[in-house]
């Protein structure tokens, strides 16, 4: 029996080493391959950076358009998901209505588990539908992607709002009632500010998720070469999609290097957002754990 336990111990240690090796291996590999290409040329190619950013000068050889596209989609997704998610989360946590809340909760869980390609398919179906009925020349674009992406990250926003409000000590609500506040006043003036950091953490998490997803944008407007989008209904480039196309069909070592560079940029972005969300969540817990 002793050998059994020893084998188990070895197994656990071996398993524990795998993620360590994996993560470090991944980061080191990306750095090794992409380090050389990091720099302003990665983003802007031959175009001077300031022109590219402020005067929308076309960039031929850099990932700036992809970065811009990602920023735009993420921004639109945030605009959709944050208010919607915030209010829905408040509703679910503070105004439970028995059966209805149960159904809504199930819907949120369903949305949370939905494969992102389905979201993209939904967007695509929406365009098909519009083409056949109201708007014959409807096409995919930034707005559609933003909307679908917003739906994708909505559950994250709802759940983190719910969790933050739910984690507040009961005394706060009693305090509100004691002061003569109505329910919505308690929420607005006491609960939301107190849960602020947790909610912010949810916001950051949602943004991170929106920035990295590829499947949704693939079906709703991201393309390999579009330059900067002129309007909300234009196709656009995006970082994750760029990374995918490089892996699928790169044609030159420079392009490959750009791919590695883009991967590094995206990874840094999502890791940074993750750490920020984690830090905010931690700060919130620290504040209320003593209660």
């Amino acid at each position, binding site marked *: 029996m002793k050998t059994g336990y020893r084998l188990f111990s070895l197994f656990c240690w*071996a398993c524990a080493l795998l993620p360590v090796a994996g993560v470090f291996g991944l980061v080191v590999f990306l750095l090794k391959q992409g380090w050389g290409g990091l720099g302003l040329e990665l983003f802007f190619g031959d175009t001077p950076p300031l022109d590219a950013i402020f005067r929308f000068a076309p960039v031929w050889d850099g990932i700036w358009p992809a970065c811009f596209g990602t920023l735009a989609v993420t921004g639109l997704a945030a605009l959709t998901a944050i208010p919607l998610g915030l209010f829905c989360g408040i509703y679910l946590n503070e105004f439970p209505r028995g059966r209805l809340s149960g159904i809504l909760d199930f819907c949120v869980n369903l949305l949370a588990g939905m494969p992102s*390609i*389905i979201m*993209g398919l939904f967007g695509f179906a929406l365009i098909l*539908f519009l083409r056949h009925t109201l708007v014959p020349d409807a096409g995919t674009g930034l707005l559609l992607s933003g909307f679908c992406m917003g739906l994708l990250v909505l559950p994250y926003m709802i759940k983190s709002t719910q969790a933050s409000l739910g984690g507040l000590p009961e005394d706060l609500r009693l305090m509100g009632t004691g002061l003569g506040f109505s329910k919505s006043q308690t929420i607005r003036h006491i609960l939301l500010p107190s849960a602020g950091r947790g909610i912010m953490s949810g916001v950051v998490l949602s943004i991170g998720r929106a920035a990295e997803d590829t*499947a949704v944008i693939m079906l709703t407007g991201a393309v390999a070469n579009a330059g900067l989008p002129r309007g909300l209904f234009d196709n656009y480039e995006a970082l994750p999609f760029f990374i995918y196309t490089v892996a699928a069909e790169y044609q030159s070592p420079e392009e490959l290097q750009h791919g590695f560079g883009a991967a590094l940029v995206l990874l840094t972005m999502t890791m940074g957002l993750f750490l920020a969300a984690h830090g905010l969540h931690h700060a919130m817990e620290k504040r209320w754990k003593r209660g």
Partner: protein
Amino acid sequence: MYRTADRRAGSLWLLACRSSAAVTGAAVLAILLFLLWFSLPLLDADTLSKLLSWDWRPFHGGFGILPMVAGSLLLSLSALLLAFPVSVGICCFAHGMGPSGPAACLLRLVKFMTSVPTVVYGFVGVFVLVPLLREAFRSGSGFCWLAAAVGLAVLILPTIVLMLHSQFMLIEPQVKLTATALGMSPAQRLLHLVMPNSGRGFAAALVLGFGRALGDTMIPLMLAGNAPQVPGSLLESLRAMTAHIALVVATDSQSLAYLSLFACGLILFLSTTLVNLGLQLLKRPEEDKG
């Protein structure tokens, strides 16, 4: 005066909350409705039989999606097979088999892994895993079932570990001090007390991991080869439903091809619903016990 103004603001807030809830519910409904609407042509038995075949050759009239369904299932199950034992090992390490300092760091690292975009995993897979397989087995291009399974396993590992961890945390506090005082080793405690009592958590982790693997698009798309066939071996190519949707949308084709997309979408939607129902069922009896 302030009171009434604030009251009005209050009722606006209530309205905002209620409407947001309504919109969310409506969104889920809308997704389902759109999928159903575009899948309506499936109700024709002839079309249905065309789609439920094993032959996908759109230019020759073959629109069978069954290879993709099989592909998704095989891939998800194999990823689960790889990821689950490793997750158990990691969780046990974090709960007594390893020293407490490194154990805490390990959990933080696993949590951190969730921040890596799947497209980056796919990208690294294309340039590290695929050539590795190509060299090691000297058959095929390296884009195969095995490559995608490994990639997916890495992707779902944190999901499973964190689910198991939260399950262990339910049992550990009661049991750890008692078992230690009795003279049990951490291995005995984990193998004979913690894990046998975590059946529900294990089931939930399996279901969650399976759902996550089934729903991913980028790793199957980038690593599995995308041949619309049922693979004969681990080194052969396959196509998942998610990848199928991404590929077919990109090519302008006839309407039966598009229909296959919605058929796949419907299947994926249904399986997500089943996964969720399963998780709900697993959760409920625990509340009764308490």
